[in-house]
C-alpha cells in the first residue's frame, strides 16, 4: 500500500531526523546527551503504545509489562551468560518479550474497550508482583546492575560506556526501528488495523480475522516496548522495579496523551516534552508529578488531539489563510 510519494516522504523525514539526531549532541554537555538518549528510548516506547491506542483504538494501562520484561531480560542474561555480546543480549531480550506479548495477547484477544484496559492493568500488576517476589532472579526491590559489554565490529571497537557513543548506537538502532514503525502504519497490515478500529463488523464481513490482526499488532507493540525497555537498562546500566511498575505504564499514557494520539509524530513529541518538562520541573519542585497530572487533565478536557493536533490545526489555519489570499489574487 506504500506508494512512490509516501516512500519519498518517508525517506525525506528519515534523512531529516537522522541529520538532526547526528548534529544535536555536538557541543552540548554530557548530561544533555544522556537526556537525548532517554528521549529516543521513550519515543519508541510511546510510538509502540500509540500503535495500540491511536491506530488500533485499544487503551492499555499495562504497557510497562513489556518494557519491564525487556529491561529485566537484558539485565538477567548479561549477568548470567558470560561473554554475551551487546546485540546478543538485546536479541534474547526482544525474543522473550515477544513470547510474553504472545502469551498475554492470546488471553486478551477476545476483549477490547473497557475490559481490555482493565485486563492489561491486571496483567501489569501480575508482572510487577513476579518481579518483586522472585528475588533470586530479579533482585527484588534492589534491582539489578549490569556491566555493559563493548561492541566489537571487527574494524572498530565501540566503547558503549561512553555517553556519546551510546547515544549514537541508540539513535541508529531505535531511530531505524521508529522509522520502520512509520513504514508499518503504511503497509497493508497497518491499514488493516486502522480499518478494524473503524468498522470491525465490515472487516469481518470482508473476510479478515480481526482477532488475529489485533493479536499480531499486540505482539508487535510488545516487541517494540521490549526493545525500548532493554535499551533503558543498557542506558542506565541498571534496572529496577520501577521499569515494570504501573507507574511506568502511567508515564507512557501521559506522554502519548500530551503528544496526541492522532498522528505518528505525536507520541515522539510527547516523549520529548515529557522528559524535558520532568527534567525542568524536578529541579524546581518535588511535586512535579502533580503538575504533570494537571497538565494531563487539561489536555484531555481542552486539547483532546494533543500537541500534534494543536500544531496541525495551527498549520491548517496558516495554510487556509494562504490559500485564501492566493485565491483572492487569482480573482483579481
Amino acid at each position, binding site marked *: 500500500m506504500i506508494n512512490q510519494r509516501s516512500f519519498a516522504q518517508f525517506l525525506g523525514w528519515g534523512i531529516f531526523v537522522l541529520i538532526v539526531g547526528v548534529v544535536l549532541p555536538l557541543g552540548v554537555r554530557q548530561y544533555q546527551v544522556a537526556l537525548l538518549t532517554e528521549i529516543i528510548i521513550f519515543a519508541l516506547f510511546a510510538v509502540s503504545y500509540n500503535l495500540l491506542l491511536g491506530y488500533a483504538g485499544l487503551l492499555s494501562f499495562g504497557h510497562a509489562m513489556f518494557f519491564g520484561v525487556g529491561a529485566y531480560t537484558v539485565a538477567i542474561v548479561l549477568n548470567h551468560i558470560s561473554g554475551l555480546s551487546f546485540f546478543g543480549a538485546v536479541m534474547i531480550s526482544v525474543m522473550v518479550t515477544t513470547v510474553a506479548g504472545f502469551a498475554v495477547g492470546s488471553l486478551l484477544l477476545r476483549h477490547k474497550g473497557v475490559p481490555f484496559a482493565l485486563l492489561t492493568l491486571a496483567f501489569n500488576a501480575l508482572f510487577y508482583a513476579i518481579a518483586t517476589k522472585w528475588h533470586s532472579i530479579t533482585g527484588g526491590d534492589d534491582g539489578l546492575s549490569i556491566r555493559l559489554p563493548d561492541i566489537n565490529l571487527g574494524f572498530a571497537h565501540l566503547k558503549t560506556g561512553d555517553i556519546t557513543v551510546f547515544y549514537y548506537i541508540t539513535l541508529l538502532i531505535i531511530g531505524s526501528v521508529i522509522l520502520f514503525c512509520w513504514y508499518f502504519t503504511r503497509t497493508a497490515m497497518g491499514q488493516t488495523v486502522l480499518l478494524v478500529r473503524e468498522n470491525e463488523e465490515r472487516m469481518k464481513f470482508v473476510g479478515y480475522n480481526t482477532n488475529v490482526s489485533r493479536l499480531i499488532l499486540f505482539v508487535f507493540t510488545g516487541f517494540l516496548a521490549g526493545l525500548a525497555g532493554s535499551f533503558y537498562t543498557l542506558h542506565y546500566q541498571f534496572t529496577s522495579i520501577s521499569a515494570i511498575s504501573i507507574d511506568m505504564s502511567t508515564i507512557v499514557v501521559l506522554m502519548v496523551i500530551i503528544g496526541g494520539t492522532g498522528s505518528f509524530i505525536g507520541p515522539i513529541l510527547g516523549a520529548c516534552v515529557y522528559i524535558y518538562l520532568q527534567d525542568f520541573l524536578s529541579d524546581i519542585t518535588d511535586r512535579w508529578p*502533580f503538575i504533570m497530572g494537571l497538565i494531563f487533565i487539561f489536555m484531555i478536557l481542552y486539547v483532546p488531539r494533543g500537541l500534534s493536533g494543536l500544531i496541525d490545526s495551527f498549520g491548517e489555519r496558516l495554510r487556509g489563510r494562504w490559500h485564501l489570499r492566493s485565491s483572492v489574487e487569482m480573482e483579481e
Partner: protein
Amino acid sequence: MSDIPVFFLHGLVYAGLLFLISSGLTLVFGMMNVLNLAHAAFYMLGAYFSYSLLNATGNFWLSLIVCPLLLFFIGAAVERFLLRRVHVYGHVQELLITFGVAYIITESVKWIWGNYPLGVNLGGFLSGSVNLFGLFYPIYRLFMFFCAILISLIMATVLYKTRIGIIVRASVDDSEMVNTLGINVPLVFTGVFGFGAALSGFAGVIAGPLLTTYPGMAAEILVDAFVVIVIGGMGSLVGALVASLMIGELQSFGALLFPKLSLALMYMLMAAVLIIKPSGLFGEEQ
C-alpha cells in the same frame, strides 16, 4: 488445626471489604459504561480523611459518617464537572479522565500526608479481642465484616425495594430508554457515581486501621477489585459478591497454604475464567 477457622474469617473480612469497593465499581460500570479508575483513589482518600479526623477529634464513629459524606460530594463533583464533559468523546476519554483523577489524588495524598505509611490508632473496645467458640479473634475484624454485611443489606434493600432502586436498575439495563421515560438520568448518574465514591470511602475508613494507610494502598486494592469484577462479570452485583468471596478466601488460604504463590493464585483464577467464560461468571455475553 485451629488455623483454618481463623484464616476463613480473615478471608471473609477481606471479601467484605472487596465487595464494598467492587459493588460501586460494577454498578457505575453497568450504568454508565465507565470503568472508574479513580474508584480506589476514593477509598484511599477515605482512609486518609479518617486518619486526620481521628487525630483531630479521636472519634472513630464520627469519621465513619463524615468521610463517606465528603467522598460523596467529591465523587459527584468529579462526575459532574469532569466525566460529563468528556462523555461525548467516548469511552477512551472517560477512562483517561478517571485515570488522571486517580493520578492527581495519589500525588495530592503524597503531598499532604507524606509518602510513608501512617498508623491509625483506634483505642476503645474495638482494639480488643473476643472469645469466639474458644478462638480469640480481634473485634475490629469482626466489626469490619459486620459493617460490610450491613451496608450490603442496605444497598440491596434500596436497589430492590425502592423507587430509586428501580430507576438505577433500569438505567443499568438501558439508560437511554429510562431517559426517554422522563427521568433525569444524568442526575441519577451523578448520584450513583457519588454513592459509589462514598461506599469506596467508607471501605477506606474501615480498612485504614487494619491495612496500613499509605499512598500505594489505592493501586493495590484497585487491581484486586478489577480481578473481582472480571471474574464476577462486569456490571453484575451478584457476580461481584460471589467473586469477592472467592478472592477473599483465595488470598487468605493462599497465604496459609502456598505463601510463595499466593499472589499468582488470584491471577491464575482470573486467567482460567477468561479462557472458559470471557464475560465472567455472571456477566452477560457481549
